[in-house]
């Protein structure tokens, strides 16, 4: 997330939903934040920040503030795809100038790896464990980036820390956008996905190369792929790097992989079509 902040050349105010990021960076009396920061609750980073942004406009209008300030909200996938979706949707519709960044680690990590609607099909979490009866999550992941694009806001992007330049340039575009912008950032989580921390970047990259997490942006309704893998790898390549998918390689769970591959292919084709 620091990468996002580094990309900002105007002072920013940050709002954060409850989640790993917030818990890891602020424990009274310590804060890791060097910019103004507010955490209100789990589900309302977008609405809280929309209040802050409005306050800013009110004071600007009255000449009580002169400086330019940008506003960034951070939320995990739980705080964005699930419990905070409505607040985000509302803020976007109202048109606040703010960047909402979802750091998507595909589960509720802070509370110990429960499924979210961002959890991919087949992944095991503590609330959709791989058990005798059920092979992990039985639903496909919500495609939040697409949902946000359907909000017709001026800027929507999907990116990954695996590709630093992509992330930075998208952040800069987003912050320049006069109106709401949304960025979905895949954020591999060693603990929740079960892999050694040093593979973080590799796994982020693999998600992109398997087209499970394509990098693209939607600018004023125009779709554009920002990176096209030289070779589209099978999702298996990505799945096998992570313990949460280990059960898929056992017994007759192979078909879940096929299902997942089919869905990835379908969405990828759709994306290719839209961005052509």
């Amino acid at each position: 997330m620091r990468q996002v902040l580094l990309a900002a050349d105007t002072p920013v105010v940050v709002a954060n939903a409850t989640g790993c990021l917030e818990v890891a960076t602020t424990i009274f009396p310590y804060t890791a934040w060097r910019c103004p920061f507010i955490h209100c609750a789990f589900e309302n980073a977008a609405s809280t920040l929309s209040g802050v942004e409005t306050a800013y406009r009110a004071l600007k209008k009255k000449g009580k503030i002169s400086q330019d300030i940008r506003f960034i909200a951070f939320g995990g996938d739980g705080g964005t795809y699930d419990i905070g979706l409505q607040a985000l949707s509302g803020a976007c519709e109202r048109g606040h100038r703010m960047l909402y960044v979802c750091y998507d680690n595909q589960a509720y990590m802070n509370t110990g790896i429960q499924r979210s609607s961002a959890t991919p099909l087949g992944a095991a979490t503590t609330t959709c464990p791989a058990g005798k009866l059920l092979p992990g999550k039985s639903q496909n992941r919500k495609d939040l980036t697409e949902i946000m694009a359907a909000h017709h806001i001026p800027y929507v992007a999907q990116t990954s820390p695996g590709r630093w330049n992509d992330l930075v340039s998208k952040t800069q575009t987003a912050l320049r956008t006069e109106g709401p912008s949304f960025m979905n950032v895949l954020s591999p989580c060693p603990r929740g996905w079960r892999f050694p921390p040093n593979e973080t970047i590799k796994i982020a990259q693999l998600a992109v190369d398997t087209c499970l997490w394509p990098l693209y942006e939607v600018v004023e309704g125009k779709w554009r792929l920002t990176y096209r893998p030289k070779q589209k790898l099978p999702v298996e390549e990505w799945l096998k790097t992570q313990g949460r998918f280990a059960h898929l390689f056992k017994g007759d769970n192979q078909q879940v992989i096929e299902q997942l591959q089919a869905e990835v292919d379908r969405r990828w084709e759709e994306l290719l079509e839209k961005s052509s």
Partner: protein
Amino acid sequence: MKITPDTGWKKLPQGGVILEAGNAEQYITGSWRTFRPIRDEQKCTNCLLCWIHCPDSSIIVENAKIVGIDYDHCKGCGICAEVCPPRIKAITMVEERKTDDLK
């Protein structure tokens, strides 16, 4: 005012706010580390990839050059070693052996 574990209710800032930005750096977490990244200055090309990816902001950069590692906060995750280009491999992870230099 510095807040310590002894600070009583009368002295806390109102509303639970933390007034001092970025004071988490006073909170030394380096001892949580099991492995320690060691950078070989000779090999390093200052590509800054490790700086970009370090989750704990522990690679210290001055004038676009790496000048050191902040062992007070580095948690030893090894990401820097991983992202350092394979041809270069300027960072290696070495096991902490504090046991040995126990005072």
